[in-house]
């Protein structure tokens, strides 16, 4: 009679599993941020440090009366095209460099140069060759981003366990299956890290390039706001973009991640 409650009440469960698994903590995250921001904005009253309320009002205004949605659309299109291409290209090249020592050794310097080439140089050269086109912009972003992806993925590939390679060899796995079953799962943490930071980096690069050569988009508008020192406007645009990123994170990234890393044992 006493047995059942005893079973269902762990007495030495020290791992706060309940706290950890309680839903809702992430729903507190954003409100908390806004609260801190609001308090700070009220503490340091300054035209250049607008409160979240002011920013959301501005955002609403720009969305309904201004060109926010149009600009956001343009930028998103550019960023996502560049993102997808960079991730694919960077991952493939990263695997190549990670696996083939001689390729790595031959091109490691190129990678270093690619990593450290200022965006502006790439942009100017491409714009001059290709004109101020969407293609030039996206290509410039890709050229800027790919070395980063390669570096991350290469490091991931280098950390692969030779145990699984041996298994693949014993099973005579063809390359396709080997990629899918052996490489990708080990690479995933690196790809995830790369994707998380990648979108944000790409958006920042797009901003820079939109300033240099485009007739719209968030970067273009932000640089105008900057010339007017309209921080509220800048933050309104930024917030709009961050909302999109969050929607992506919670709508796409997390669910995929949850599925893909289901096998990972919960560290107790």
């Amino acid at each position, binding site marked *: 009679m006493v047995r059942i409650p*005893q*079973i269902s009440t*762990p*007495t*030495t*469960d*020290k*791992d706060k599993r309940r706290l950890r698994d309680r839903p809702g903590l992430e729903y507190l995250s954003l409100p908390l941020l806004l609260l801190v921001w609001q308090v700070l904005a009220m503490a340091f009253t300054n035209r250049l440090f607008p409160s979240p309320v002011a920013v959301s009002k501005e955002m609403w205004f720009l969305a309904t009366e201004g060109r926010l949605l149009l600009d956001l659309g343009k930028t998103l299109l550019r960023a996502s095209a560049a993102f997808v291409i960079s991730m694919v290209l960077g991952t493939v090249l990263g695997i190549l460099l990670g696996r083939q020592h001689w390729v790595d050794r031959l091109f490691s310097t190129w990678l270093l140069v690619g990593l450290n080439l200022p965006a502006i140089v790439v942009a100017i050269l491409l714009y001059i060759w290709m004109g101020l086109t969407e293609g030039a912009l996206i290509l410039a972003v890709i050229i800027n981003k790919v070395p980063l992806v390669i570096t991350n993925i290469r490091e991931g590939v280098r950390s692969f366990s030779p145990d699984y390679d041996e298994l693949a060899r014993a099973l005579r796995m063809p390359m396709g299956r080997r990629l899918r079953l052996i490489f990708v799962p080990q690479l995933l943490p690196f790809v995830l890290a790369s994707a998380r930071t990648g979108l944000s980096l790409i958006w920042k690069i797009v901003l820079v390039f939109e300033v240099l050569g485009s007739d719209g988009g968030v970067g273009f508008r932000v640089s105008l706001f900057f010339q007017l020192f309209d921080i509220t406007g800048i933050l309104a645009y930024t917030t709009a973009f961050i909302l999109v990123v969050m929607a992506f994170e919670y709508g796409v990234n997390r669910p995929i991640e949850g599925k893909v890393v289901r096998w990972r044992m919960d560290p*107790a």
Partner: protein
Amino acid sequence: MAHGPGLTLNIVEKRFDPLATPVLDQFTLNIAPGSVVALVGPSGVGKSTILRLVAGIDRLFSGRITVDGIDADKAHPPGFVFQDPRLLPWLTAIDNIRAADGKMPQATALQALAQVGLNGYGDAYPHQLSGGMQRRLALARALAINAEVLLLDEPFVSLDRALVNEIHGLLAELVGAKRPTVLFISHLAEDAARLADRVVVLAGRPARIVDDIELPTSRQQRDGNIINGYIRRIESAASTKTGTKL
């Protein structure tokens, strides 16, 4: 003479999957201070689970496990051998042993290495060792800290007979000299018959103690005949009482 602590296991429930039958349910086991207990039973019955609970590695269960009255996960670190070697691949053999205790002198680690027949391999990384050598290294790590409790999950596997005999001798000597409390798992009746004071036979899900065999003759006095008798007793207990296929 000093000897290791007593272990008491009062496990109300241990389950991994909230829906499936628990692995352990109302499981009680007391182990006398300084005794050597072998845990036998079919594959997947819950032997390793018990060992991990006693070591304080797994704390997700209801009930209480104590080491001389202290909660298992707060007690002194036991000498623990995992079922796999569980070596740190980025450390050399000697450093793997020393990882067990920050203050262990180099000499102690070298001695532990020699005890399991690995002299000269101190600077090798785990992947440079054969399977059996890795297991021996894991055993050396467990023995090097001179713990009062030894929890060994199939410590004699993957080793040739000569080596097993030697390690049996080593353990018997250690037990004779320091009288630690030892709980070990083995699928070979011979290991239990040579080393154990008591054999606990598990079966079923949830796991139950289906037999609890005392082996009264002291280790030093066990000759071939006694050991063969013990082996037969253990094997028959294991085969008749655990008939259930998993």
